[in-house]
């Protein structure tokens, strides 16, 4: 027997071969575009345009990367992406856990109705919000600013609130009451009792939010019209439009936008996969 699953004793070899063959072909298909991106980004132009194309680089060069940082403010884009995704993540983690605590353990007028509003908003696609969102941001004078990039994105907090509420709900009331008797204020309870207990959830939420925001494209596309305020995905899209024929340069840009998240992924794999599985929770309400 192959162990768990559907393999059986008799066909063990045949089935094993089929499974490995399937997985290996699949893995190559997945890896190939990434490898091709890396290879292209270190090729001189003659080699990029050579036929037949090869994965072997005869004269590796960093020229595409030098061009990239010379022609567009790439450093600024990296900073923009880090700053925007970072701020939203920090806000999201603390604001949604604080609100999640109130929704889980406090009794106040309208609590369930407000919570229901948040949850209901998960059903609404971004296409509905984006047009008024753009006009609001425009009227606030926030087009082409960090405020415009960050503050409206902080409003997408329903899922975080839901997640935190679920986890804080399972913390025993006795623990909170004990802290209250010891003279803790509500904020101290949040800070000293709740936060340490929900750390794993917050870690997952943080990585997930950061990833999503780092890769976010539509909102920056709509509200950023000046070059130096672009985030990486937007910069990459513009780069493709401008230097579409210079594939070395564009692939170097893709590497800069992609590799940091691949590293984050490899470091925090466990949390990210947990996060994906938890989004499945959304529907089990």
């Amino acid at each position: 027997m192959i162990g768990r699953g559907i393999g059986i004793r008799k066909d063990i070899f045949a089935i094993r071969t089929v499974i490995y063959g399937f997985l290996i072909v699949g893995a190559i298909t997945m890896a190939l575009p990434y490898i091709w991106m890396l290879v292209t980004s270190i090729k001189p132009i003659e080699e990029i345009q050579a036929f037949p194309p090869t994965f072997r680089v005869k004269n590796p060069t960093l020229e595409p990367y030098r061009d990239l940082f010379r022609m567009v403010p790439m450093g600024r884009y990296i900073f923009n992406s880090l700053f925007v995704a970072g701020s939203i993540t920090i806000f999201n983690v603390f604001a949604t856990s604080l609100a999640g605590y109130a929704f889980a353990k406090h009794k106040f007028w309208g609590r369930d109705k407000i919570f229901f509003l948040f949850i209901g908003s998960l059903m609404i696609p971004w296409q509905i919000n984006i047009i008024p969102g753009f006009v609001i941001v425009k009227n606030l004078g926030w087009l082409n600013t960090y405020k415009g990039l960050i503050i409206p994105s902080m409003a997408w907090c329903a899922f975080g609130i839901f997640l935190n509420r679920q986890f804080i709900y399972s913390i025993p009331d006795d623990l909170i009451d004990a802290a209250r008797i010891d003279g803790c204020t509500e904020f101290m309870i949040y800070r000293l009792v709740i936060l340490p207990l929900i750390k794993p959830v917050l870690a997952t939420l943080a990585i997930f939010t950061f990833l999503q925001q780092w890769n976010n494209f539509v909102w920056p596309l709509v509200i950023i019209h000046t070059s130096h305020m672009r985030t990486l995905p937007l910069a990459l899209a513009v780069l493709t439009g401008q230097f579409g024929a210079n594939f070395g340069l564009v692939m170097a840009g893709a590497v800069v936008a992609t590799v940091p998240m691949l590293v984050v992924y490899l470091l925090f794999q466990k949390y990210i996969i947990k996060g994906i599985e938890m989004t499945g929770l959304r529907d089990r309400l």
Partner: protein
Amino acid sequence: MENETFLQKINKQKISYLFIALPFTLFFVFQLVPVFVSFFWSFTKYDVIHSPQFVGFANYKTIFFNDPLFWKAIRNTFVYVIGVVPPGIIMALLLAVAIDQKIKLKNFFKSIFFLPTVTAMIAISVIWKWLYAGEKYGLLNFFLIKVGLHPIDWLASPAWILPSIMIMSIWAGLGYNMILFLAGLQTIPDSMYEAAEIDGAGFWRKFVHITLPLLRPIIVFVTMMSFVFSFQVFEQVYVMTGGSGGIGGVLNSGLTIVAYLYDKGFQKFQMGYASALAYIIFLMTFMLTVINKRLMKSEVGY
């Protein structure tokens, strides 16, 4: 004493409202209000510069009866959804089953299939645009030539632009669905398979009679999510079809419904018209969700 507890209660409520104040305010301004505003705007003519002008159902009427581009976008979107969701789900399911076996390098395979999920869709599209590059130096065409086929004008031909985006999207979505299926597979107890084996069930029968039925809730859920996500496809279309002359590709053969909304709203600044489109998209996604929910409820529990 009674007074005191009452005061305490009020005080405690105050702090609760304080705790939710910030996220709620943002949520109210940027999420809740826009839902109603765009509904109102869908009955107006609005170009952002002048104030909205009420036009009744004119936008909806034009969209349904006098806008061939809308129908083209709808058609393309449905072709895309049908072409992406079923094959994508079947492949992800097979992958999940394969990885769920006792195999070597399990985590390596998991990670590699998952890579696109952490990659920005824009980056994926840019990389694939290069893979699809025409004639000579594009990698995919080189493979085609090598196996004796004709090179394809992937992104420049009306017939291939949509399939090109579809192939890429299936590739990009595999890992995400696979993880959800794997989570489901792990809840199936080994004893079930062992019992079936004792009864002499083979590979295929175990898959059909144990794995599929037990996984059904997750399959329905993943299908529903995929339908909604695919229906709203945008970033791929933006990169792959957007050239100098806006979005949609040759003869608009790559135009999807959300791309059309973007074009109307943010390139032509017909905000009223775009709002009506947004509500049509919303209603269609909502209907998709309801239909899928029904399917999920109708199923028998195991």
